[in-house]
């Protein structure tokens, strides 16, 4: 029963996204991202999106399609050197870009998922990326206060799911996916394979199904 509730196609999942939404996407340089979900969103009419991701793929490739399709209002992330279209769009005023150091970015997403509105880090103190943020001194060292990063929808990529929605990942594709799964109002996971509940080793489940709302099984080619 649960299986039917959670499972859907990428196209169905994409209808959950509204123009203006804040969307997290698990990805690292065109690796380990939910390809079918990104495809479906890129083919949809939604626009004015805020995309929260490590990077934005390459020009017109991967997450880069959102920008090429003019679906982006703003970006929050940390590394756009792999997609020079981002700097060009920012310089022309077409989009806003908020750069957050990668570790702070990861932690801020986790924070959103675990009910922590703000936390302190030593990363970037005194630099251009934290100049508008409050600072505080603890035990003689200066730290900057960083805020949690929330989203409306998270599109994540996992290797295996069980029918409940428990997830495991594959190698370095784990990076942002389990964090983003916790941080959005609605989490949609694209997986290579769905197995019956109870088949994943309970000790090796990385994302408990409480964090997963919809499952899309990758269509085998």
């Amino acid at each position, binding site marked *: 029963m649960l299986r039917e509730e959670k499972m859907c196609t990428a196209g169905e999942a994409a209808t959950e996204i509204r123009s203006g939404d804040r969307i997290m996407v698990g990805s690292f*340089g065109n690796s380990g991202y939910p390809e079918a979900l990104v495809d479906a969103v890129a083919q949809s009419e939604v626009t004015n999106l805020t995309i929260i991701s490590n990077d934005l793929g390459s020009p017109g490739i991967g997450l880069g399609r959102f920008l090429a399709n003019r679906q982006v209002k703003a970006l929050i992330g940390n590394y756009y050197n792999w997609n020079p279209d981002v700097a060009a769009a920012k310089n022309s005023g077409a989009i806003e870009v908020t750069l957050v150091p990668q*570790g702070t970015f990861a932690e801020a997403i986790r924070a959103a998922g675990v009910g922590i509105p703000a936390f302190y880090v030593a990363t970037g103190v005194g630099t251009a*990326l934290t100049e508008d943020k409050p600072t505080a001194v603890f035990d003689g060292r200066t730290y900057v206060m960083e805020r949690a990063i929330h989203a409306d929808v998270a599109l994540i990529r996992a290797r295996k799911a069980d029918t409940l929605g428990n997830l495991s990942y594959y190698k370095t594709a784990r990076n942002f996916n389990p964090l983003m799964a916790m941080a959005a109002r609605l989490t949609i996971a694209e997986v290579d394979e769905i197995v019956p509940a109870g088949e994943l080793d309970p000790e090796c489940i990385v994302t408990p199904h409480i964090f997963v709302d919809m499952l899309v099984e990758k269509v085998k080619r």
Partner: protein
Amino acid sequence: MTDLVPKEQAKTRIARWIAQEFMSQQRRLFINLGVGTPTLVANYIRSDRIFLQAENGMLGVGPRAPSGQVDPLLINAGREPVTETPGCCYFDSATSFGMIRGGHIDATVIGAFEVDETGSIANWIIPNGRQMGVGGAMDLVAGARQVVVAMPHCSGSGKPKLVRACTLPVTGFNEADLVVTELAVFRFYETRMVLTEMAPEIDLDGLKAITEARFQVDPQLRTMAV
């Protein structure tokens, strides 16, 4: 760049020197290598006590994957295909940067545009509007116990990269512990910059002429292994 040491030889020399430095420590070390010359350090490490961390969520990074054995989801933070070593493991990016920020990474080796005489590092952006990325640079310089800068002594146009004060946006203030170029090794003590080794191709006057930063000279100044 100076023309004293050819470019590829310069990179090799820097990478080998840093690998030797780590191997001489005779203890377990966890090291994060940045893209470019820092990645080359891995080629010269022969030790089962040295473990490489990739900030995209892997500990125990092995050598670059040979073509034909590339797994697109087994990559380092520079998107290069790598291999696994026995006992390697994977984790999310919050844990990965937790290792870095929490002081568990013994050393990071990074490139830089500029390092100034107080140890401040500029390596994340050249404000020309064409690049927008910080990646893990700020986390690494703030978090790693030892920050090792691996860079050519001068820029491509021949300008000093060791400067009095960074002119580019700073990545971290007073964070450099060690700077290794093809011509010299400098160590930072608090904010004192000290020349400890110098390459055979140059003398002190020559080095000062291409080093804008003011530095002290170690009384035990040695010739850099090349």
